[in-house]
């Protein structure tokens, strides 16, 4: 018995992949040519598996702001928000996020993981209850496990199942936190937030929505699924990230609860870690502004999403139930998924390979995501790459 024994299954998979000469996990981006093209593992590819939804990582204004921030404030804050790591930019960004979401309070974190995990582990504690969607992100599961609260899952996107579980709580609903996402990260499907909010109003408790994958995409102002569903007033806490639509790294939580300011000083992933670098804050502030000033970005994003979704569906692949900028192709056989991932790479398309337990079922996924920056021609080239994979075989396996 050694500490390393439990890693044997992972080591076995790595050996298998190494023998095949395929490296889907930790594929190396050697060169970035634009927000949509790169050289990955030696192949020139269209990037069809990033979270660069609005394509802002090469926006000149964002880059200029980041460069200026480095000149003015240096390469890093070298400190926690609780010590020396709060610069004027952090406060400004918090104010701008609060303003954008029309909430009173905001906290900026160093990563989205820290934000989600931090809220999940701190808002509820021993004796409290957390009821979360079964397909919640790892950061949510990690956070709630740490919290010490009683953790109850409800069936993915099933408001009737949520109703059952809240009903069973009786009085405990008063210290219950409900956690769901807006757009789910693997399949790109949306939570039925109108129904979920109705259940919450019926019983009580507080609702936290992780809109990591929905910022800038849905709702009149791009605030996500809650806005699109008209239930923002029922959402007590929104968490999100800077690493997708905003093209940087970091996370946030917004709320109208004044108590958020006290909670800030209890969240360990806020206190015990260095704050975001000045350049990250600067480019994120610009990206947040541009997202609001350029509605055409969102239009192009959804146009590309429909184009890719329809193309893959017509080829006979089993795609996600709903069109979204995240489009996952289900591949039942793991070895098939690995081989296809590699084929796609050879044919100029980088997508994400997702295997259990990261995928929500026992199947593997070839997870694609589109950007506002993709041209129609690039989307068509991604579809062409998939076309070479024998879609009839995919339909047969389904």
């Amino acid at each position, binding site marked *: 018995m050694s500490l390393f024994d439990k890693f044997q299954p992972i080591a076995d998979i790595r050996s298998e992949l190494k023998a095949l000469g395929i490296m889907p996990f930790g594929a190396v981006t050697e060169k970035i040519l634009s927000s949509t093209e790169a050289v990955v593992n030696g192949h020139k590819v269209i990037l069809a598996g990033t979270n660069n939804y609005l394509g802002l990582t090469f926006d000149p204004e964002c880059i200029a702001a980041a460069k200026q921030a480095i000149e003015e404030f240096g390469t890093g804050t070298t400190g926690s928000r609780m010590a020396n790591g709060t610069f004027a930019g952090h406060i400004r960004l918090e104010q701008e996020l609060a303003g954008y979401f029309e909430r009173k309070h905001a906290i900026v974190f160093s990563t989205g993981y820290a934000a989600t995990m931090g809220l999940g582990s701190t808002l509820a504690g021993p004796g409290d209850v957390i009821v979360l969607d079964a397909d919640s992100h790892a950061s949510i599961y990690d956070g709630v496990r740490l919290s010490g609260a009683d*953790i*109850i899952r409800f069936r993915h996107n099933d408001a009737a199942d949520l109703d*059952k579980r809240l009903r*069973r709580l009786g009085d405990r609903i008063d210290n219950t936190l409900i956690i769901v996402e807006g757009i789910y990260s693997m399949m790109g499907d949306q939570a039925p937030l109108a129904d979920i909010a109705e259940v919450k109003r019926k019983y009580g408790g507080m609702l936290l929505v992780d809109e990591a994958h929905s910022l800038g995409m849905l709702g009149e102002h791009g605030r996500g699924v809650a806005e699109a569903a008209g239930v923002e007033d029922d959402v007590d806490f929104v968490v999100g990230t800077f690493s997708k639509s905003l093209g940087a790294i970091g996370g946030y939580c917004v709320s109208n609860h004044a108590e958020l300011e006290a909670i800030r000083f209890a969240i360990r992933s806020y206190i015990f870690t260095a704050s975001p670098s000045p350049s990250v804050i600067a480019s994120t502030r610009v990206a947040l502004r541009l997202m609001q000033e350029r509605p055409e970005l969102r239009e192009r994003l959804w146009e590309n999403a429909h184009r890719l979704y329809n193309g893959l569906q017509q080829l006979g692949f089993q795609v996600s139930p709903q069109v979204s900028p995240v489009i996952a192709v289900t591949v039942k056989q793991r070895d098939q998924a690995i081989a296809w991932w590699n084929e796609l790479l050879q044919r100029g398309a980088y997508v994400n390979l997702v295997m*259990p337990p990261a995928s929500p079922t026992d199947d593997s996924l070839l997870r694609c995501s589109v950007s506002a920056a993709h041209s129609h021609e690039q989307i068509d080239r991604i579809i062409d790459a998939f076309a070479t994979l024998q879609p009839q075989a995919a339909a047969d396996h389904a």
Partner: protein
Amino acid sequence: MPDYNDFLARIFEILKPFAKQGIILNEESELVTELCLTSLQVMELIEQIEDHFDMSIPLNILPDIRTVHDLALQLEKLSN
């Protein structure tokens, strides 16, 4: 109020399809190592019990569960 035996009966009922050739299903049967349930299947087992007894089972109890007996015991504790 369901008791240990009620829970045991229902667990055996749900696990019957998982008892492959040569595997004897009893209280000492280990869910993961003997019956080879994946973590997803353990979740589905939990869900079926929840629906049948109209109770919610916190995920917190999972680390303490190895055998059928462990599960039935935890369920009895929860319903009290």
